[in-house]
Protein backbone atom coordinates (compact mmCIF):
# COMPACT_ATOMS: atom_id res chain seq x y z
CA UNK A 1 0.00 0.00 0.00
CA UNK A 2 2.78 2.39 0.96
CA UNK A 3 4.42 1.70 -2.37
CA UNK A 4 1.28 2.65 -4.27
CA UNK A 5 0.84 5.87 -2.26
CA UNK A 6 4.48 6.74 -2.96
CA UNK A 7 3.88 5.94 -6.65
CA UNK A 8 0.82 8.20 -6.77
CA UNK A 9 2.84 11.01 -5.19
CA UNK A 10 5.58 10.63 -7.77
CA UNK A 11 2.94 10.44 -10.53
CA UNK A 12 1.39 13.70 -9.35
CA UNK A 13 4.80 15.37 -9.17
CA UNK A 14 5.73 14.13 -12.65
CA UNK A 15 2.36 15.37 -13.97
CA UNK A 16 2.97 18.79 -12.39
CA UNK A 17 6.47 18.99 -13.90
CA UNK A 18 5.04 18.00 -17.29
CA UNK A 19 2.40 20.72 -17.02
CA UNK A 20 5.06 23.37 -16.42
CA UNK A 21 7.14 21.87 -19.25
CA UNK A 22 4.24 22.01 -21.72
CA UNK A 23 3.41 25.62 -20.85
CA UNK A 24 7.05 26.73 -21.11
CA UNK A 25 7.56 24.79 -24.36
CA UNK A 26 4.63 26.42 -26.13
CA UNK A 27 5.49 29.91 -24.91
CA UNK A 28 9.11 29.40 -25.97
CA UNK A 29 8.12 28.18 -29.42
CA UNK A 30 5.72 31.11 -29.86
CA UNK A 31 8.29 33.71 -28.81
CA UNK A 32 10.83 32.08 -31.09
CA UNK A 33 8.10 31.45 -33.70
CA UNK A 34 9.10 27.86 -34.27
CA UNK A 35 5.75 26.15 -34.85
CA UNK A 36 3.74 25.76 -38.03
CA UNK A 37 2.36 29.35 -37.84
CA UNK A 38 5.89 30.49 -38.65
CA UNK A 39 5.07 29.69 -42.27
CA UNK A 40 3.22 33.03 -42.21
CA UNK A 41 6.18 34.84 -40.64
CA UNK A 42 8.33 33.52 -43.46
CA UNK A 43 5.68 34.32 -46.06
CA UNK A 44 4.81 37.87 -44.90
CA UNK A 45 7.89 39.66 -46.35
CA UNK A 46 7.35 37.85 -49.63
CA UNK A 47 3.88 39.42 -49.74
CA UNK A 48 5.32 42.85 -48.93
CA UNK A 49 4.70 42.84 -45.17
CA UNK A 50 7.99 43.59 -43.38
CA UNK A 51 7.82 42.61 -39.70
CA UNK A 52 9.80 42.31 -36.44
CA UNK A 53 8.85 38.75 -35.50
CA UNK A 54 11.50 36.18 -34.53
CA UNK A 55 11.93 33.34 -37.01
CA UNK A 56 13.65 30.10 -36.03
CA UNK A 57 11.56 27.31 -37.54
CA UNK A 58 14.33 25.34 -39.21
CA UNK A 59 13.14 22.23 -37.33
CA UNK A 60 9.75 21.18 -36.02
CA UNK A 61 9.16 21.45 -32.29
CA UNK A 62 9.15 17.66 -31.65
CA UNK A 63 12.62 16.91 -33.12
CA UNK A 64 14.06 20.12 -31.67
CA UNK A 65 12.81 19.29 -28.19
CA UNK A 66 13.83 15.66 -28.70
CA UNK A 67 17.36 16.93 -29.24
CA UNK A 68 17.47 19.46 -26.40
CA UNK A 69 15.86 17.24 -23.77
CA UNK A 70 17.95 14.20 -24.80
CA UNK A 71 21.03 16.42 -24.62
CA UNK A 72 20.08 17.76 -21.19
CA UNK A 73 19.23 14.25 -19.98
CA UNK A 74 22.45 12.78 -21.41
CA UNK A 75 24.62 15.41 -19.76
CA UNK A 76 22.73 15.07 -16.47
CA UNK A 77 23.20 11.31 -16.69
CA UNK A 78 26.95 11.77 -17.23
CA UNK A 79 27.18 14.19 -14.28
CA UNK A 80 25.28 11.73 -12.08
CA UNK A 81 27.71 9.01 -13.11
CA UNK A 82 30.42 11.35 -11.79
CA UNK A 83 28.66 11.22 -8.41
CA UNK A 84 27.29 14.75 -8.69
CA UNK A 85 24.03 15.39 -6.80
CA UNK A 86 21.08 14.59 -9.16
CA UNK A 87 19.40 17.99 -8.83
CA UNK A 88 22.65 19.81 -9.56
CA UNK A 89 23.36 17.38 -12.41
CA UNK A 90 19.96 18.04 -13.98
CA UNK A 91 20.42 21.82 -13.63
CA UNK A 92 23.89 21.64 -15.22
CA UNK A 93 22.74 19.31 -18.01
CA UNK A 94 19.74 21.52 -18.79
CA UNK A 95 21.86 24.69 -18.72
CA UNK A 96 24.31 23.23 -21.22
CA UNK A 97 21.47 22.02 -23.45
CA UNK A 98 20.02 25.55 -23.38
CA UNK A 99 23.27 26.94 -24.81
CA UNK A 100 22.79 24.61 -27.77
CA UNK A 101 19.23 25.92 -28.06
CA UNK A 102 20.61 29.48 -27.98
CA UNK A 103 23.07 28.75 -30.78
CA UNK A 104 20.28 27.08 -32.74
CA UNK A 105 17.97 30.08 -32.23
CA UNK A 106 20.64 32.58 -33.27
CA UNK A 107 21.77 30.79 -36.41
CA UNK A 108 18.20 29.93 -37.37
CA UNK A 109 17.03 33.55 -37.04
CA UNK A 110 20.00 34.91 -38.97
CA UNK A 111 19.75 32.27 -41.67
CA UNK A 112 16.01 32.37 -42.17
CA UNK A 113 15.79 36.16 -42.07
CA UNK A 114 18.83 36.68 -44.31
CA UNK A 115 17.15 34.44 -46.89
CA UNK A 116 14.38 37.04 -47.08
CA UNK A 117 16.80 39.89 -47.93
CA UNK A 118 15.66 40.05 -51.54
CA UNK A 119 12.15 40.87 -50.27
CA UNK A 120 13.53 43.76 -48.20
CA UNK A 121 13.28 42.06 -44.79
CA UNK A 122 16.09 43.38 -42.52
CA UNK A 123 17.89 41.34 -39.86
CA UNK A 124 17.17 43.25 -36.63
CA UNK A 125 20.07 42.86 -34.24
CA UNK A 126 18.03 44.26 -31.33
CA UNK A 127 15.46 41.50 -31.92
CA UNK A 128 18.21 38.90 -31.79
CA UNK A 129 19.63 40.41 -28.59
CA UNK A 130 16.37 40.83 -26.72
CA UNK A 131 14.48 37.71 -27.76
CA UNK A 132 17.05 34.94 -27.95
CA UNK A 133 17.66 35.13 -24.22
CA UNK A 134 13.92 35.03 -23.51
CA UNK A 135 13.46 31.88 -25.60
CA UNK A 136 16.50 30.39 -23.85
CA UNK A 137 14.99 31.11 -20.44
CA UNK A 138 11.71 29.44 -21.39
CA UNK A 139 13.58 26.54 -22.99
CA UNK A 140 15.51 26.05 -19.76
CA UNK A 141 12.28 25.70 -17.80
CA UNK A 142 10.90 23.21 -20.34
CA UNK A 143 14.10 21.14 -20.52
CA UNK A 144 14.77 21.16 -16.77
CA UNK A 145 11.24 20.06 -15.86
CA UNK A 146 11.18 17.33 -18.53
CA UNK A 147 14.59 15.93 -17.54
CA UNK A 148 13.57 16.04 -13.85
CA UNK A 149 10.35 14.21 -14.76
CA UNK A 150 12.32 11.54 -16.67
CA UNK A 151 14.68 11.14 -13.71
CA UNK A 152 11.70 10.56 -11.41
CA UNK A 153 10.32 7.94 -13.80
CA UNK A 154 13.59 6.00 -13.60
CA UNK A 155 14.73 6.46 -10.02
CA UNK A 156 11.34 6.40 -8.27
CA UNK A 157 9.11 4.39 -10.60
CA UNK A 158 11.72 2.02 -12.04
CA UNK A 159 11.30 2.55 -15.80
CA UNK A 160 13.95 0.45 -17.61
CA UNK A 161 15.05 3.07 -20.21
CA UNK A 162 18.27 5.01 -19.52
CA UNK A 163 17.85 8.75 -18.89
CA UNK A 164 19.03 10.02 -22.33
CA UNK A 165 16.67 7.67 -24.20
CA UNK A 166 13.76 8.62 -21.97
CA UNK A 167 14.69 12.26 -22.59
CA UNK A 168 14.45 11.69 -26.34
CA UNK A 169 11.09 9.92 -26.06
CA UNK A 170 9.47 12.50 -23.80
CA UNK A 171 11.16 15.42 -25.57
CA UNK A 172 9.52 14.41 -28.85
CA UNK A 173 6.19 13.83 -27.08
CA UNK A 174 6.50 17.26 -25.40
CA UNK A 175 7.07 18.96 -28.75
CA UNK A 176 4.18 17.03 -30.32
CA UNK A 177 1.72 17.94 -27.54
CA UNK A 178 2.88 21.56 -27.34
CA UNK A 179 2.80 22.21 -31.07
CA UNK A 180 -0.53 20.44 -31.58
CA UNK A 181 -2.33 22.38 -28.85
CA UNK A 182 -0.58 25.72 -28.91
CA UNK A 183 -0.05 26.35 -32.63
CA UNK A 184 -3.63 27.23 -33.66
CA UNK A 185 -3.89 29.80 -30.88
CA UNK A 186 -0.66 31.51 -31.91
CA UNK A 187 -1.38 31.17 -35.63
CA UNK A 188 -5.03 32.13 -35.91
CA UNK A 189 -5.70 34.18 -32.79
CA UNK A 190 -2.46 36.14 -32.62
CA UNK A 191 -0.91 36.46 -36.03
CA UNK A 192 -4.33 37.03 -37.60
CA UNK A 193 -5.87 38.99 -34.75
CA UNK A 194 -7.47 41.40 -37.23
CA UNK A 195 -9.51 38.61 -38.81
CA UNK A 196 -13.02 37.88 -37.59
CA UNK A 197 -13.27 35.82 -34.40
CA UNK A 198 -14.96 32.45 -34.82
CA UNK A 199 -13.84 31.68 -38.36
CA UNK A 200 -10.77 30.30 -40.05
CA UNK A 201 -8.39 32.63 -41.85
CA UNK A 202 -9.26 32.82 -45.56
CA UNK A 203 -6.42 31.50 -47.68
CA UNK A 204 -6.44 34.83 -49.58
CA UNK A 205 -5.29 36.59 -46.37
CA UNK A 206 -2.15 34.47 -46.07
CA UNK A 207 0.94 36.46 -45.17
CA UNK A 208 -0.99 39.51 -43.93
CA UNK A 209 -0.02 39.03 -40.30
CA UNK A 210 -0.56 41.70 -37.65
CA UNK A 211 2.62 43.76 -37.47
CA UNK A 212 1.70 46.67 -35.22
CA UNK A 213 1.15 46.70 -31.47
CA UNK A 214 -0.48 49.20 -29.12
CA UNK A 215 2.68 51.28 -29.38
CA UNK A 216 5.08 50.78 -32.23
CA UNK A 217 5.70 47.56 -34.06
CA UNK A 218 4.72 44.20 -32.64
CA UNK A 219 7.48 41.80 -31.79
CA UNK A 220 7.66 38.21 -30.57
CA UNK A 221 7.70 39.18 -26.88
CA UNK A 222 4.19 40.57 -27.40
CA UNK A 223 3.25 37.21 -28.92
CA UNK A 224 4.65 35.33 -25.92
CA UNK A 225 2.68 37.63 -23.60
CA UNK A 226 -0.49 36.75 -25.52
CA UNK A 227 -0.07 33.00 -25.95
CA UNK A 228 0.98 32.58 -22.31
CA UNK A 229 -2.66 33.39 -21.45
CA UNK A 230 -4.23 30.34 -23.12
CA UNK A 231 -2.11 28.47 -25.67
CA UNK A 232 0.74 27.88 -23.21
CA UNK A 233 -1.35 26.73 -20.24
CA UNK A 234 -3.50 24.55 -22.52
CA UNK A 235 -0.36 22.88 -23.91
CA UNK A 236 0.79 22.40 -20.33
CA UNK A 237 -2.48 20.77 -19.35
CA UNK A 238 -2.28 18.56 -22.45
CA UNK A 239 1.23 17.30 -21.72
CA UNK A 240 0.56 17.11 -17.98
CA UNK A 241 -2.55 14.96 -18.53
CA UNK A 242 -0.65 12.68 -20.91
CA UNK A 243 2.16 12.07 -18.43
CA UNK A 244 -0.14 11.84 -15.42
CA UNK A 245 -2.58 9.33 -16.93
CA UNK A 246 0.21 7.27 -18.51
CA UNK A 247 1.91 6.88 -15.13
CA UNK A 248 -1.23 6.72 -13.01
CA UNK A 249 -2.81 3.85 -14.93
CA UNK A 250 0.41 1.84 -14.61
CA UNK A 251 1.32 2.66 -11.01
CA UNK A 252 -2.16 2.14 -9.54
CA UNK A 253 -3.79 -0.44 -11.78
CA UNK A 254 -0.98 -2.69 -13.00
CA UNK A 255 -1.21 -4.89 -9.88
CA UNK A 256 -4.84 -5.67 -10.84
CA UNK A 257 -5.87 -8.55 -13.17
CA UNK A 258 -2.28 -9.72 -13.69
CA UNK A 259 -1.28 -6.41 -15.27
CA UNK A 260 -4.34 -6.03 -17.55
CA UNK A 261 -5.83 -3.51 -15.11
CA UNK A 262 -3.56 -0.78 -16.54
CA UNK A 263 -4.67 -1.58 -20.10
CA UNK A 264 -8.37 -1.62 -19.20
CA UNK A 265 -8.12 1.68 -17.31
CA UNK A 266 -6.21 3.15 -20.27
CA UNK A 267 -9.06 2.21 -22.60
CA UNK A 268 -11.61 3.64 -20.14
CA UNK A 269 -9.68 6.95 -20.03
CA UNK A 270 -9.62 7.05 -23.85
CA UNK A 271 -13.41 6.50 -23.92
CA UNK A 272 -13.93 9.27 -21.35
CA UNK A 273 -11.91 11.66 -23.53
CA UNK A 274 -13.99 10.56 -26.53
CA UNK A 275 -17.15 11.59 -24.66
CA UNK A 276 -15.60 14.92 -23.61
CA UNK A 277 -14.49 15.62 -27.19
CA UNK A 278 -17.88 14.76 -28.65
CA UNK A 279 -19.65 16.92 -26.05
CA UNK A 280 -17.44 19.89 -26.94
CA UNK A 281 -17.98 19.34 -30.66
CA UNK A 282 -21.78 19.25 -30.29
CA UNK A 283 -21.73 22.20 -27.88
CA UNK A 284 -19.77 24.27 -30.42
CA UNK A 285 -22.13 23.40 -33.26
CA UNK A 286 -25.19 24.35 -31.18
CA UNK A 287 -23.71 27.46 -29.59
CA UNK A 288 -21.90 29.00 -32.56
CA UNK A 289 -24.21 27.75 -35.31
CA UNK A 290 -23.41 27.53 -39.01
CA UNK A 291 -20.97 29.94 -40.63
CA UNK A 292 -22.36 33.27 -41.73
CA UNK A 293 -20.31 35.43 -44.05
CA UNK A 294 -19.40 38.87 -42.63
CA UNK A 295 -20.96 41.85 -44.34
CA UNK A 296 -17.58 43.23 -45.36
CA UNK A 297 -14.80 41.06 -46.70
CA UNK A 298 -12.40 40.43 -43.86
CA UNK A 299 -9.31 39.96 -45.98
Amino acid at each position, binding site marked *: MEEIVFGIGITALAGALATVAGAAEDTESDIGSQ*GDPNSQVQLAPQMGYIHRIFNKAVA*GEPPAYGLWVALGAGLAWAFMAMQINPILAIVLGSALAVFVQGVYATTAYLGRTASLAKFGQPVYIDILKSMTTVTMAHAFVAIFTTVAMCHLMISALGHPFPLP*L*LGLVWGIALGAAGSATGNPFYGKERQYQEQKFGA*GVPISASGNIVRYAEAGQRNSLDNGFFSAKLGGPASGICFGLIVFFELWRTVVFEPLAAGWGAVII*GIVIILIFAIIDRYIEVWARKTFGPYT*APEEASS
Partner: protein
Amino acid sequence: MSALGGPKQTGGVQSPTGMGIAIGIVLIIVALVLAFFFAQMAGLIALVGIIIGGVLIGFGVHFVPVGGAPAAMGQAPGIATGVAMLAAGAGLAGLFGGAWAAPLGLPLALAGGAVGGGLLMAITCTMVNIIYVFGMGIPAASGKVAKDPITGDTFPEYKSQGTEGHGLPFISWVGGVIGGALGGLGGTLIYLELLDIYQAQLPTILDTTVEQIAPVAISLAGVFAVGMFLMNAVLAAYNITGTIEGPHDPKFKRFPRAVIAAAVASAVAGIFSIGLLELVGVF
Protein backbone atom coordinates in the same frame (compact mmCIF):
# COMPACT_ATOMS: atom_id res chain seq x y z
CA MET B 1 -17.97 14.81 -58.53
CA SER B 2 -17.22 14.78 -54.83
CA ALA B 3 -19.87 15.52 -52.23
CA LEU B 4 -18.59 19.08 -51.95
CA GLY B 5 -18.57 19.74 -55.68
CA GLY B 6 -15.55 20.27 -57.85
CA PRO B 7 -13.48 17.58 -59.49
CA LYS B 8 -13.46 14.09 -58.04
CA GLN B 9 -10.84 13.77 -55.32
CA THR B 10 -8.74 10.78 -56.18
CA GLY B 11 -6.22 11.64 -53.48
CA GLY B 12 -3.40 10.92 -55.88
CA VAL B 13 -3.72 7.16 -55.37
CA GLN B 14 -0.95 5.39 -57.23
CA SER B 15 -0.77 1.64 -57.05
CA PRO B 16 2.67 0.19 -56.39
CA THR B 17 4.40 -0.82 -59.62
CA GLY B 18 5.19 -4.45 -60.43
CA MET B 19 8.90 -3.69 -60.49
CA GLY B 20 8.70 -2.00 -57.08
CA ILE B 21 6.87 -4.95 -55.54
CA ALA B 22 9.36 -7.43 -57.07
CA ILE B 23 12.39 -5.52 -55.75
CA GLY B 24 10.70 -5.19 -52.37
CA ILE B 25 10.03 -8.93 -52.14
CA VAL B 26 13.62 -9.74 -53.14
CA LEU B 27 15.01 -7.37 -50.49
CA ILE B 28 12.73 -8.84 -47.81
CA ILE B 29 13.72 -12.43 -48.73
CA VAL B 30 17.44 -11.51 -48.68
CA ALA B 31 16.96 -9.89 -45.28
CA LEU B 32 15.14 -12.94 -43.93
CA VAL B 33 17.90 -15.27 -45.18
CA LEU B 34 20.54 -13.06 -43.57
CA ALA B 35 18.55 -12.97 -40.32
CA PHE B 36 18.51 -16.78 -40.30
CA PHE B 37 22.23 -16.78 -41.02
CA PHE B 38 22.98 -14.34 -38.18
CA ALA B 39 20.76 -15.72 -35.40
CA GLN B 40 19.05 -18.82 -36.78
CA MET B 41 15.34 -19.22 -36.04
CA ALA B 42 15.35 -16.53 -33.34
CA GLY B 43 16.71 -14.02 -35.86
CA LEU B 44 14.09 -14.99 -38.44
CA ILE B 45 11.24 -14.60 -35.95
CA ALA B 46 12.67 -11.28 -34.72
CA LEU B 47 12.91 -9.89 -38.26
CA VAL B 48 9.34 -10.94 -39.05
CA GLY B 49 8.25 -9.15 -35.87
CA ILE B 50 10.21 -6.05 -36.87
CA ILE B 51 8.64 -6.06 -40.35
CA ILE B 52 5.14 -6.39 -38.86
CA GLY B 53 5.94 -3.59 -36.41
CA GLY B 54 7.18 -1.35 -39.22
CA VAL B 55 4.07 -2.03 -41.30
CA LEU B 56 1.83 -1.21 -38.33
CA ILE B 57 3.64 2.12 -37.89
CA GLY B 58 3.51 2.98 -41.60
CA PHE B 59 -0.18 2.09 -41.79
CA GLY B 60 -1.01 3.80 -38.48
CA VAL B 61 0.47 7.15 -39.55
CA HIS B 62 -2.21 7.37 -42.27
CA PHE B 63 -4.91 7.51 -39.58
CA VAL B 64 -3.43 10.51 -37.78
CA PRO B 65 -5.24 13.75 -38.74
CA VAL B 66 -2.54 16.28 -39.49
CA GLY B 67 -3.24 19.71 -40.91
CA GLY B 68 0.26 21.17 -40.77
CA ALA B 69 0.70 24.92 -41.21
CA PRO B 70 -2.79 25.60 -42.70
CA ALA B 71 -4.41 24.03 -39.62
CA ALA B 72 -2.59 26.55 -37.42
CA MET B 73 -4.55 29.34 -39.16
CA GLY B 74 -7.83 27.45 -39.17
CA GLN B 75 -7.48 27.03 -42.95
CA ALA B 76 -7.54 23.21 -42.97
CA PRO B 77 -8.79 20.53 -40.58
CA GLY B 78 -6.43 18.47 -38.48
CA ILE B 79 -3.75 18.96 -35.89
CA ALA B 80 -1.36 21.84 -36.55
CA THR B 81 1.91 19.97 -36.68
CA GLY B 82 3.87 17.59 -38.91
CA VAL B 83 2.62 14.10 -39.80
CA ALA B 84 5.75 12.19 -38.86
CA MET B 85 6.36 14.18 -35.71
CA LEU B 86 2.91 13.80 -34.21
CA ALA B 87 2.86 10.10 -35.00
CA ALA B 88 6.32 9.78 -33.46
CA GLY B 89 5.18 11.57 -30.31
CA ALA B 90 2.27 9.15 -29.92
CA GLY B 91 4.18 6.03 -30.90
CA LEU B 92 7.10 6.78 -28.62
CA ALA B 93 4.76 7.44 -25.69
CA GLY B 94 3.36 3.99 -26.49
CA LEU B 95 6.88 2.56 -26.57
CA PHE B 96 7.43 4.06 -23.11
CA GLY B 97 4.39 2.15 -21.77
CA GLY B 98 5.21 -1.03 -23.68
CA ALA B 99 8.82 -1.14 -22.47
CA TRP B 100 7.62 -0.63 -18.91
CA ALA B 101 5.25 -3.59 -19.21
CA ALA B 102 7.81 -5.80 -21.02
CA PRO B 103 8.56 -8.05 -17.98
CA LEU B 104 4.84 -8.96 -17.82
CA GLY B 105 4.89 -10.75 -21.18
CA LEU B 106 4.43 -10.02 -24.88
CA PRO B 107 0.61 -9.62 -25.07
CA LEU B 108 0.47 -7.25 -22.10
CA ALA B 109 3.44 -5.19 -23.30
CA LEU B 110 1.91 -4.83 -26.79
CA ALA B 111 -1.47 -3.86 -25.32
CA GLY B 112 0.28 -1.39 -22.99
CA GLY B 113 2.13 0.15 -25.95
CA ALA B 114 -1.05 0.48 -28.00
CA VAL B 115 -3.00 2.06 -25.14
CA GLY B 116 -0.11 4.44 -24.38
CA GLY B 117 -0.04 5.72 -27.97
CA GLY B 118 -3.84 5.94 -28.13
CA LEU B 119 -3.98 7.80 -24.83
CA LEU B 120 -1.56 10.50 -26.01
CA MET B 121 -3.60 11.03 -29.17
CA ALA B 122 -6.93 11.01 -27.30
CA ILE B 123 -5.76 13.75 -24.92
CA THR B 124 -4.00 15.77 -27.63
CA CYS B 125 -6.96 15.64 -30.04
CA THR B 126 -9.37 16.67 -27.27
CA MET B 127 -7.13 19.59 -26.26
CA VAL B 128 -6.92 20.68 -29.92
CA ASN B 129 -10.71 20.85 -30.06
CA ILE B 130 -10.82 22.71 -26.74
CA ILE B 131 -8.47 25.37 -28.18
CA TYR B 132 -10.46 25.61 -31.43
CA VAL B 133 -13.80 25.90 -29.66
CA PHE B 134 -13.03 27.88 -26.51
CA GLY B 135 -9.96 29.80 -27.71
CA MET B 136 -10.96 30.56 -31.28
CA GLY B 137 -14.73 30.03 -31.38
CA ILE B 138 -14.50 27.72 -34.39
CA PRO B 139 -16.61 24.54 -34.70
CA ALA B 140 -15.10 21.52 -36.47
CA ALA B 141 -15.71 21.12 -40.22
CA SER B 142 -14.15 18.61 -42.56
CA GLY B 143 -13.11 19.76 -46.01
CA LYS B 144 -12.99 16.29 -47.56
CA VAL B 145 -16.41 14.85 -46.71
CA ALA B 146 -19.83 16.47 -46.33
CA LYS B 147 -20.91 14.21 -43.49
CA ASP B 148 -19.08 12.64 -40.56
CA PRO B 149 -19.18 8.87 -41.21
CA ILE B 150 -19.55 8.13 -37.49
CA THR B 151 -21.79 10.86 -36.07
CA GLY B 152 -23.59 11.94 -39.25
CA ASP B 153 -22.83 15.64 -38.59
CA THR B 154 -22.90 17.75 -41.73
CA PHE B 155 -19.99 20.09 -42.42
CA PRO B 156 -20.41 22.39 -45.46
CA GLU B 157 -22.56 24.96 -43.60
CA TYR B 158 -20.01 25.20 -40.75
CA LYS B 159 -17.01 25.73 -42.99
CA SER B 160 -15.60 29.27 -43.01
CA GLN B 161 -15.45 31.05 -46.31
CA GLY B 162 -12.14 30.71 -48.12
CA THR B 163 -10.90 27.76 -46.06
CA GLU B 164 -10.75 24.00 -46.57
CA GLY B 165 -12.38 23.38 -43.20
CA HIS B 166 -11.02 23.53 -39.66
CA GLY B 167 -10.89 21.81 -36.29
CA LEU B 168 -11.07 18.10 -35.62
CA PRO B 169 -14.32 16.35 -36.56
CA PHE B 170 -15.08 13.22 -34.51
CA ILE B 171 -13.96 10.87 -37.30
CA SER B 172 -10.54 12.56 -37.22
CA TRP B 173 -10.43 12.17 -33.44
CA VAL B 174 -11.12 8.44 -33.78
CA GLY B 175 -8.52 8.20 -36.58
CA GLY B 176 -5.95 9.90 -34.37
CA VAL B 177 -6.50 7.42 -31.53
CA ILE B 178 -6.33 4.42 -33.90
CA GLY B 179 -3.15 5.82 -35.48
CA GLY B 180 -1.53 6.41 -32.09
CA ALA B 181 -2.49 2.91 -30.94
CA LEU B 182 -1.10 1.25 -34.08
CA GLY B 183 2.10 3.28 -33.76
CA GLY B 184 2.52 2.35 -30.10
CA LEU B 185 1.84 -1.31 -30.93
CA GLY B 186 4.34 -1.37 -33.81
CA GLY B 187 7.06 0.46 -31.90
CA THR B 188 6.70 -1.82 -28.89
CA LEU B 189 6.79 -4.94 -31.08
CA ILE B 190 10.08 -3.82 -32.68
CA TYR B 191 11.52 -3.04 -29.23
CA LEU B 192 10.55 -6.41 -27.75
CA GLU B 193 11.89 -8.40 -30.71
CA LEU B 194 15.24 -6.60 -30.59
CA LEU B 195 15.41 -6.90 -26.80
CA ASP B 196 15.02 -10.71 -27.09
CA ILE B 197 17.82 -10.88 -29.65
CA TYR B 198 20.22 -8.70 -27.65
CA GLN B 199 19.48 -10.50 -24.39
CA ALA B 200 20.32 -13.78 -26.10
CA GLN B 201 23.45 -12.59 -27.92
CA LEU B 202 25.13 -10.13 -25.55
CA PRO B 203 25.87 -12.49 -22.61
CA THR B 204 27.69 -14.87 -25.02
CA ILE B 205 29.72 -12.14 -26.72
CA LEU B 206 30.65 -10.28 -23.52
CA ASP B 207 30.81 -13.42 -21.36
CA THR B 208 28.48 -12.00 -18.70
CA THR B 209 25.03 -12.68 -17.27
CA VAL B 210 21.70 -11.47 -18.65
CA GLU B 211 21.25 -9.17 -15.61
CA GLN B 212 24.60 -7.48 -16.19
CA ILE B 213 23.95 -6.69 -19.85
CA ALA B 214 20.31 -5.64 -19.29
CA PRO B 215 21.00 -1.86 -19.41
CA VAL B 216 22.99 -2.22 -22.65
CA ALA B 217 20.38 -4.49 -24.26
CA ILE B 218 17.50 -2.20 -23.24
CA SER B 219 19.33 0.91 -24.48
CA LEU B 220 20.27 -0.65 -27.82
CA ALA B 221 16.77 -2.04 -28.41
CA GLY B 222 15.21 1.28 -27.38
CA VAL B 223 17.43 3.37 -29.66
CA PHE B 224 16.82 1.06 -32.63
CA ALA B 225 13.07 1.03 -31.95
CA VAL B 226 12.99 4.86 -31.86
CA GLY B 227 15.08 5.02 -35.04
CA MET B 228 12.90 2.54 -36.91
CA PHE B 229 9.81 4.32 -35.70
CA LEU B 230 10.99 7.64 -37.13
CA MET B 231 12.06 5.97 -40.38
CA ASN B 232 8.64 4.39 -40.96
CA ALA B 233 6.77 7.50 -39.85
CA VAL B 234 8.74 9.68 -42.27
CA LEU B 235 8.22 7.17 -45.11
CA ALA B 236 4.47 7.31 -44.51
CA ALA B 237 4.60 11.10 -44.34
CA TYR B 238 6.24 11.21 -47.79
CA ASN B 239 3.45 8.98 -49.06
CA ILE B 240 0.81 11.31 -47.60
CA THR B 241 2.56 14.49 -48.92
CA GLY B 242 1.47 17.26 -46.58
CA THR B 243 -1.81 16.98 -44.77
CA ILE B 244 -4.40 14.28 -44.17
CA GLU B 245 -7.70 14.38 -42.28
CA GLY B 246 -7.84 10.75 -41.20
CA PRO B 247 -9.37 7.50 -42.45
CA HIS B 248 -12.12 9.34 -44.41
CA ASP B 249 -9.59 11.37 -46.42
CA PRO B 250 -9.13 10.21 -50.05
CA LYS B 251 -5.37 10.26 -49.38
CA PHE B 252 -5.88 7.41 -46.91
CA LYS B 253 -6.28 5.06 -49.89
CA ARG B 254 -2.59 5.57 -50.65
CA PHE B 255 -1.61 3.35 -47.72
CA PRO B 256 -0.72 0.15 -49.72
CA ARG B 257 2.35 1.91 -51.12
CA ALA B 258 3.48 2.97 -47.66
CA VAL B 259 2.86 -0.50 -46.25
CA ILE B 260 5.14 -2.09 -48.86
CA ALA B 261 7.77 0.61 -48.39
CA ALA B 262 7.62 0.23 -44.59
CA ALA B 263 7.98 -3.56 -44.85
CA VAL B 264 11.05 -3.30 -47.09
CA ALA B 265 12.66 -0.49 -45.08
CA SER B 266 12.03 -2.32 -41.80
CA ALA B 267 13.50 -5.53 -43.21
CA VAL B 268 16.67 -3.77 -44.36
CA ALA B 269 17.05 -1.69 -41.17
CA GLY B 270 16.10 -4.70 -39.08
CA ILE B 271 18.86 -6.85 -40.53
CA PHE B 272 21.42 -4.24 -39.53
CA SER B 273 20.06 -4.13 -35.98
CA ILE B 274 20.00 -7.93 -35.72
CA GLY B 275 23.41 -8.38 -37.34
CA LEU B 276 24.98 -5.54 -35.34
CA LEU B 277 26.30 -7.76 -32.57
CA GLU B 278 27.54 -10.37 -35.03
CA LEU B 279 29.56 -7.66 -36.74
CA VAL B 280 30.82 -6.38 -33.37
CA GLY B 281 31.75 -9.96 -32.51
CA VAL B 282 33.76 -10.30 -35.73
CA PHE B 283 35.89 -7.28 -34.82
